[in-house]
Structure formats: C-alpha cells, structure tokens
C-alpha cells in the first residue's frame, strides 16, 4: 500500500481529487472525517516547546498528529544515521545490515510524512542523544546504542498507538499511521533480539514486552514502559481466561497487548533528547 498510489488511483476515477487535496493543509482537513469533531483545546500538543510551531500554525488534529509523528521519526532517523556513521560502533555483518534497514525505514518515514504535510511540516529539532550526558557513550558503546534503540522503538510503537483515535475513520491517514506503527513494532522485535544476543543485562529480552520495564536498562526508561503491565482489556481480565494449561499467565496477558502512551508521556521522553 502506498499513499501516493492511492492518490493516483483516486485521481483516475475522480479528476477533481487533486484540486481538492491542494493545498495540503486543506487536504488533510478534508481527509479527517473526525477533524472538526475534536476540539483543538483537547489536543495535548501544547506541552513542550517542540510542538509550538505545528500547533500554532495548524490547529487541526490530523496535522498535529502527523507533525507529532514526524518529530519522532526525525529523532529515530537521526539516531540511526549517526549510529551507522560512527566508526566501529556496530559490528559488521548482520548487525550493520539490520541497523541500516531500520535507518532507511525511519528516513523513509520522515520523507513520507514531510511529503504528506507539505508546508505544514515542522522543522527537525536539534537532538542530544546523550540526554544531557546520561548516555554519554551512546555512539561509542554498542550496548548503550542498542538500549536506546529499543527504548525509541518501543516508545514509537506506543506513541502511534496513542494517536490512532484522532485519526478514526480516515482511510488514508489512519491506514498509513497503522502501517508505520507496525513497521516500528517489527523494528522493536528485532532490536530486542539483538540485545538478547548480546547477553548481560539484556539476556532475558524477548521480542515482545513483558510487564513493566523488562528492558534491563534500568529505572531511567521506566517511563517508556509505564503501564505495560496492564492485564485488563475492555473490562476483561486476561488472566481470568483459559489457556492451554490453566489460566493465561500474567506474562502472557501483558505481552499479548501493547499499551498506548499519551502524547504528554511521549513528549516527556522525547524531550530528554531534544536540545
């Protein structure tokens, strides 16, 4: 699925489509079936100076979500670009191949979101991946680099999930957001396997999230995993359901559902890495 292919195909049956979707701002507003129903005041994007530009310029929910996503993708794209450029950081062979794959996806996400947003796109912030010195060896120590990669990927998955509701009913934008969301989850799964293979504090890592903060990184990433120990979905306690051998375990209950993060929580995390 390619959003621009969709535009092309719609154009073939609806020649006026391009006129309706230009300028981009109008396009995004039109595509948002729920756009006018969600009061701008309920949007959480006012938190953090990072989003002032987007919020100030385009106070519509869908554009806000897309700029929020773009900022997270800027962060990831630059992180992996710097990581792959750091000599001797990532072992040659499969590790370099995997990180390059992920880097290229994040760069593609940035380009994609910028193209969708057009002139409404926020600028790339300046990043500090040491988080003020907390991760001073991020680009010289492979394990630190992987630990941050995992934190960013798991955060990204949770961030997209948290905004899906604002895109409800929007075939083009919600579908694209879900498609990016799933790509981030694939990345997270692989990074977790890479960390497990490294052993040490990450030796017990699984491709999925077990309970609250299973990362082995420490309390510094507690906010990334806050709430992942939830075992109740829509009023159904998953541990009350039957598995193969008795009830489903608490581990299975937490692993089988990834939890969303609010934009406020994501911005608090991302803000640590933004100058």
């Amino acid at each position, binding site marked *: 699925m390619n959003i621009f292919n969709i535009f092309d195909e719609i154009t073939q049956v609806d020649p006026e489509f391009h006129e309706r979707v230009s300028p981009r701002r109008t396009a995004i507003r039109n595509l948002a079936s729920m756009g006018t129903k969600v009061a701008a005041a309920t949007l959480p994007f006012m938190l953090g100076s990072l989003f002032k530009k987007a919020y100030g310029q385009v106070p519509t929910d869908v554009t806000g979500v897309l700029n929020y996503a773009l900022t997270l993708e800027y962060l990831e794209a630059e992180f992996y670009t710097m990581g792959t450029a750091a000599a001797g950081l990532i072992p040659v062979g499969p590790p370099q191949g995997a990180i390059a794959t992920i880097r290229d996806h994040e760069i593609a996400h940035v380009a994609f979101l910028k193209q969708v947003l057009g002139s409404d796109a926020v600028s790339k912030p300046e990043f500090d991946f040491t988080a003020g010195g907390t991760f001073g060896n991020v680009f010289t120590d492979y394990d630190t680099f992987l630990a941050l990669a995992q934190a960013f990927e798991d955060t990204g998955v949770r961030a997209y999930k948290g905004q899906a509701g604002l895109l409800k009913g929007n075939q083009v934008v919600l579908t694209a957001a879900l498609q990016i969301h799933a790509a981030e989850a694939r990345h997270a799964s692989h990074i977790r396997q890479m960390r497990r293979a490294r052993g040490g504090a990450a030796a017990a890592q699984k491709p999925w999230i077990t309970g609250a903060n299973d990362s082995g990184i420490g309390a510094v990433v507690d906010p990334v995993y806050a709430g992942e120990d939830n075992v109740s979905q829509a009023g159904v306690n998953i541990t009350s359901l039957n598995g193969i051998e008795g009830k*489903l375990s608490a581990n299975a209950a937490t692993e089988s559902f990834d939890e969303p993060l609010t934009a406020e929580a994501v911005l608090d995390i991302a803000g640590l890495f933004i100058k």
Partner: protein
Amino acid sequence: MESSIKKTNGQPLPSDRPTETPVRRRQFLQYAGAGAAAAVLVAWGCKKDDPGPDMGGKGFYFGSGDIAILNYAYALEQLEAAFYTEVTSNPYGSISDWERALMTDIRDHEIAHREFFKAALGQQAIDSLTFDFSAVNFSSRGSVLATARAFEDLGVSAYNGAGWLIQDVNYLALAGKIVSVEARHAALVRDLIDNGSFANDEVIDANGLDLSNSPTVVLEVAAPFIKSKIDVTDLPTY
C-alpha cells in the same frame, strides 16, 4: 488497490461509508497484490483441491458494522491460535528450547486474543471455527515457520487494513494494541527463517509502510484453511 477502486464503479472512494462487498471465491486469484503472505497461501490454496468455505453458514454470521469487524478479528485469532496450539503440541523434531519457548509464547498471545474477543463479543461472537491445516507439514521446521510467517504477515495486514472501518474508538484502540504484537511475532518468525528479514521489502514498501489488506482480500487468502461455512455478507470491506 486496483480491485477496490473498480468496486466503486467510477465514483470517488467514500471516506465514511465502506462498500459492503460479499467475498467471492472466484476472485481468489485476482488479488495478486495481497503481498508476500498472500502469495505463499495462494500457492497452497491452489495446490489443494479444496472448494474453500461456503460463505453462508448460520452459526458463523459475523454481524454488521463494528461487531462484524470484531468477529473478523476473532476468526483470524482463532486461526492463529489453532495453528500454534498444533505447533506446540506436535513440535517439529529439531525444535530448540528457545524456539519452543517462542512458539509457546506466541500460542498464548493468540489464545489471549481469541479468548478476549470471545469474551468481549459475548452473545454476538461467532461459533468456534474448524480449520484445515492439511497443507502444513508440522514435522517440518520449514513448513511450520513459513506458515507462521504467512499468518503473521497476513494478520498485520488485516488489522492495518481494517482500522479505518472501525467506528468505535475503543475498538480501534484494542485493534492497535493487538496489531503491534502481531508485528512483533511476524518479525521474530521472519528472523527465525532468515535473520535480518524482519522487515524486508516483502513487507515494507519504499515509504517505510507495512502491509495493509482489505477484509475481502484477507479472507480470500485465509479461505483454504477455514472449513466452517462463514457468512460475511454484512462485513464492512472495500
């Protein structure tokens, strides 16, 4: 996408009123664009001389609107749970402890999803489906993992493609909670087959987007594995 555009009969795609197109077995081979998962499953479906489900059973009427989409998800989770239950009860001979643990975890996740939908749907849930896994050689690691990869990639594409059809924001949130777990599974299974293939260009396009398929496409791909007569005449699709 081509087929969905055709179904609009020249009109622009409605953004809020999905067309309701009954699944037709004869369209099976038209969906060449259904992705790598589809390609694998289509190949198997064609090898078998199975007529596939007769879409008209009464115990398996999915309902309409969001209920139908939840039953659609429930059906897919039943399929995955049944598959991994068989994998773990009859593991391939060379299975390592780590792979056995992974398959057991995934089985329990799919059972959690299945049982959750059953509980959430209550009286509106379809009956338990019966499946035909005769195309799978459970004693072969290659056959099992290729099937797992196909099911997981298909599941990811299904949730991605059905998200916009969901009217209730709470149901949408639940779908979001599940799809990323399916994507974690898909990446893991792909890496077990070929390390580094977790997100290759079979599943991620040039824009960095994962797979997406309409309910019609997904059910056609899954059809050879479903023995029960399902009725999806009122399932929203496009």
